[in-house]
């Protein structure tokens, strides 16, 4: 079989999107014989030019521009090149895909995504309830949209606190002044609301996994970030086997019948045997190729499940190292011209 799989997030820059890792994973499953279509939002996204991974690239309209233009673009891709499956990996585009997944399926484009109800579970206001239901803890949190609420939240939780944007950025504040300054910074950049969270002791650890929508896992790997960039992105990491955290991920899949990829961000306090749930991302993280590299190809299992093929769920070893690196690519200017003028390469 030959599958045409579209993947977004091919912006392999200093704040990398998850697309290239997912594309590499799918390419590595030779049985799928997949042609990868890169969905880009800018002609400068490096994935467009990485033709050993991305076979064909298209510029997409922004999802915020409305459903019609976005979905029409996907239909255009299907008609002109062929498109069997779309794997969206960016937060901003998930709602549109989730909302129209049935319509896409009717038109011959498969997806493998959570339902809208499941998607809402990732909201920060649900964290406490989910953590409890999957057998772990969560830090005390308050969602704030004004100075008054910020003050109240700080009084309730106590300093130091984490001041976080709804989707991006997190700062640790030791004083009220610091908290206010970070609050303003986040609001200026990302808008309301802002999340104020208790600082919990421990090490940040993460799980990448996927559920099949029926309560079964399509593979999971636990990691610890050893070295991160200024933007908080992993540069070096190591696989770990923290049972409590991995059990929580299993429970999440089982209890909520989660469909598709997800990432759990946790803080693990070994001394007191506590795992705190910090965030649920309803998509692949940018480091998801780490799991493929240690033998757990979650992205290929998702495609396999979607097309009714055999699934291979493997275990992994603790102590495998992940090292990200930068690279250079030299190509012809006409590739850039084509993508600018035609919107595809």
């Amino acid at each position, binding site marked *: 079989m030959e599958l045409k799989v579209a993947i977004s997030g091919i912006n392999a820059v200093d704040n990398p999107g998850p697309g290239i890792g997912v594309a590499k994973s799918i390419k590595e499953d030779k049985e799928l014989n997949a042609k990868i279509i890169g969905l880009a939002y800018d002609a400068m996204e490096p994935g467009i030019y990485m033709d050993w991974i991305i076979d064909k690239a298209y510029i997409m309209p922004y999802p915020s521009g409305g459903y019609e233009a976005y979905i029409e673009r996907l239909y255009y891709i299907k008609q002109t090149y062929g498109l069997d499956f779309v794997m969206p990996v960016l937060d901003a585009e998930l709602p549109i895909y989730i909302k129209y997944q049935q319509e896409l399926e009717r038109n011959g484009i498969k997806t493998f995504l959570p339902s809208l109800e499941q998607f809402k579970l990732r909201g920060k206001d649900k964290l406490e309830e989910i953590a409890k239901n999957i057998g772990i803890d969560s830090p005390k949190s308050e969602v704030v949209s004004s100075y008054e609420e910020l003050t109240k939240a700080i009084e309730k939780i106590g300093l130091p606190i984490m001041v976080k944007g709804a989707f991006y950025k997190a700062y640790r504040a030791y004083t009220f002044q610091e908290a206010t300054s970070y609050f303003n910074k986040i609001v200026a950049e990302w808008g309301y609301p802002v999340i104020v969270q208790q600082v919990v002791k421990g090490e940040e650890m993460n799980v990448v996994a996927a559920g099949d929508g029926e309560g079964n896992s399509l593979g999971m790997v636990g990691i610890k970030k*050893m070295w991160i960039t200024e933007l908080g992105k992993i540069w070096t990491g190591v696989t770990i086997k923290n049972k409590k955290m991995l059990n929580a991920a299993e429970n999440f899949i089982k209890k909520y019948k989660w469909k598709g990829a997800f990432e759990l961000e946790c803080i693990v306090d070994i001394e007191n045997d506590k795992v705190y749930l910090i965030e649920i991302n309803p998509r692949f993280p940018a480091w998801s190729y780490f799991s493929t590299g240690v033998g757990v190809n979650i992205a290929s299992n998702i495609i396999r499940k979607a097309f009714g093929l055999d699934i291979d769920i493997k275990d992994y070893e*603790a*102590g495998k190292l992940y090292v990200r690196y930068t690279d250079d690519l030299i190509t012809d200017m006409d590739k850039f011209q084509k993508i600018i003028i035609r919107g595809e390469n």
Partner: protein
Amino acid sequence: MNRISQIAINDEGFLFDPLTGESFTVNQTGLEIIKGLKESKSEEEIIESLTENFEIDEETAKRDFTDFIEKLRSYKIL
């Protein structure tokens, strides 16, 4: 929590804890003590192996053992 039982060690003194992802390096004396602890050897047995393998007197071995145990405790490994 006793993490020592699950820690992976190699002959060069590199320790890796699969639960936390932490890694440590120890010298040959530390390695001898860790190996002893992992094999559930008693304090006396470990001290005896130190005096034999490193040609030191019992008092020095005892002191090194106690120091190292404290170090492990401070890293929450013991």
